[in-house]
């Protein structure tokens, strides 16, 4: 037995020696892969600072003869990016608030309230997740026309703020809250509202954060629905719409186009850097990233 162990140890040591070199190569390759991946973004960033006649050079250059910060100012001059950002923020924040509020309420009902038909109703809820956005857009547009909501903020926020995804996600999490906590609260005379606000929500910060993040990303990047429902892009348009509008006018001014695209990416980059750890934690708690 000792021999087997010594053998294994020697093998492991050998492997570790080889592993040192292998790990360096692996690291190096990884960095190369990362650079390759980042190449489009770096190229776009570089182009955004170039004068317009230096965009297509052979061989390709990262920076032009000068750094034209004016490109970013020009982008603003040709399109009201401030308005686009404001609209996107308004829609995304309000939408996220609605989703979190509505989903947490219904998730609690499914997780901790007892009533007849609970399981059936939950299955129905899940069933609605099957309906893709694209089936809904045609009648949804007709509904907006009927309600007079075309080209309005509520049309951007409400129609897709009631999906069952949030309910599903939060119910998963609420179920992991120990039943004893809830039961002892009930014995103490707490009603469902107290339990919800004083026990469930505070314990679910991670899950709420994850839901908020996913929802915010969804609203922020939403393209098809705003494209359909917004008529006056310069007034109510979101950032993706504004970018397409910009493309329609300045389609061949690549340096300005890249400046505009970089502007649109800034909030995404900021959010990812800030919330990256929460994302991982959230994936763990909701069980999607687990086994």
């Amino acid at each position, binding site marked *: 037995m000792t021999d087997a162990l010594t053998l294994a140890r020697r093998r492991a040591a050998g492997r570790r020696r080889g592993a040192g070199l292998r790990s360096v190569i692996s690291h190096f390759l990884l960095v190369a892969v990362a650079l390759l991946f980042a190449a489009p973004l770096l190229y776009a960033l570089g182009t955004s600072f170039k004068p317009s*006649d230096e965009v297509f050079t052979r061989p390709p250059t990262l920076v032009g003869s000068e750094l034209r910060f004016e490109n970013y100012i020009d982008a603003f*001059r*040709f*399109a009201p990016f401030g308005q686009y950002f404001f609209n996107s923020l308004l829609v995304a924040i309000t939408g996220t608030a609605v989703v979190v509020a509505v989903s947490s309420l219904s998730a609690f009902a499914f997780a901790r309230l007892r009533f007849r038909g609970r399981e059936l109703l939950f299955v129905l809820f899940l069933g609605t997740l099957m309906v893709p956005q694209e089936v809904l857009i045609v009648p949804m*547009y007709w509904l907006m*026309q009927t309600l*007079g909501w*075309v*080209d309005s903020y509520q049309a951007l926020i409400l129609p897709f703020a009631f999906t069952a995804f949030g309910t599903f996600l939060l119910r998963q999490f609420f179920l992991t809250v120990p039943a004893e906590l809830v039961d002892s609260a009930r014995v103490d005379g707490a009603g469902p509202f107290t339990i919800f606000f004083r026990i469930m929500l505070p314990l679910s910060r991670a899950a709420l954060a994850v839901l908020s993040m996913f929802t915010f990303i969804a609203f922020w990047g939403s393209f098809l629905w705003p494209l359909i429902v917004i*008529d*006056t*892009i*310069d*007034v109510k348009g979101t950032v993706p719409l504004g970018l*397409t*509008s910009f*493309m*329609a*006018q300045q*389609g*061949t001014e690549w340096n300005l186009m890249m400046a505009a695209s970089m502007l649109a990416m800034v909030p995404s980059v900021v959010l990812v850097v800030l919330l990256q750890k929460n994302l991982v934690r959230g994936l763990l708690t909701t069980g999607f990233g687990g086994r």
Partner: protein
Amino acid sequence: MRRFRRSRGVAGIVVAGLIAIACGSPAGTPQASNPQASAPQASTPQASAPAPSEVSADLTFQFWIGGDADKKAWETVTAVAMADHPGIKITVKGNPWPTYWTRIGTQLASPTSPCIVGMQSLRLEAYADQLVPMDDLMAKYKVNPSDFDQSILNGLKHGGKQVALPYDFGPLIIFYNRDRFKAAGVAEPKPGWTLDDFKAAATALTTGGKFGFTTSSIDQEYLSWVLDLSGAEVLDAGGKLALTSPAFVDGYKQYVALMNSGITPPGSGGAAGYTGYLAMLSQFQDQTAAMYVDGPWMAISNKAVKFQLGMATMPAGAGGSKHYTAGSGFGISKQCATPEAAFQAIVSMTSDTALKGLASVGRAYPARPAVADAWYTAADIQGARETLEYADAHSVPLLTPPNWVEAAGYFDNYGFQALTGELTPEAALQTVQDQGSLGN
């Protein structure tokens, strides 16, 4: 059991209700409560037309606008209307060109439709049913049809009724780069120059990595050439899409062959549709290509270039030199609650004053011939007058079928394939014809 029967009944009622909603009044009927109207109409058929300053309304004017400078130009036009009628307030709203046409259809159908909309003669048919016929209003407010250029006035008619008043028009002609012609020693084109002249010039100008011509797959390009080369039009005698008529196919084949004879940059336009148009434009403006087809409305954008601009007629083939005339005007949405106020605003927006203002910034070759001089002075392009007058004399209005927006959309993609050689011209035309005839 009872619950089951009841739920079936409920479901039945719900379905019936849904079908009732669907079969209900079409979305296009005018609504009485337009949030834009602020005061009731001042006139009834019996009463006499009010003096201009009495009418009052709150109107929205929707147009294709690219950027702040453009918006300000249109605000000066609406200012003329507001000066003529102090009770009228007009808000200018815009979308960039390609977005405008994807939105205006649904906007016209909505109860909050803008009252005054921009309308282009070659896209009129798709939306004409949503616009208010103006003939009675023209008679009432004493608008003289003969003040306008007749071809564009007729171009904005639908079923014999006037549905928009024109503000600009123009034959599609060739813009060329005078500096490059001079540098290559090529004689500048004169009105009525022939196809052989054109080919010789384009070939001579294709040298040193630069090209003589450029094109893209949008409608004004290939339609102009097909008309010029074979005389074929888009519609047949019955007003239906006729892209596969022998004459059209022949003309289109000649166009594709001409474009691929080496005089254009490879993959002209580089992309389909409007992006291709922008790419074509920038190839002309950065001097990669010496000539391209466009309308006089582009004169001012093209004036910003660093070379001397010239305008030439379409080269004369066996059947002579032929041009399409297109133009734009303003129409009134049927959803507008104050159509008479809107009409009076439009009359001001197409008046001598307004058009002179537009012409003097070169933005619109005016639909009122009397004001044309202002445009020529502002455009200051040598030979423009001769070219435009010749072209005008050798032109037909560009008429399209009601589903042209759709057919042109198909053409954007398939015509592009014809230009790059992925599809034969005949195949491209057949596909667009088949798809375009399926309209419902």
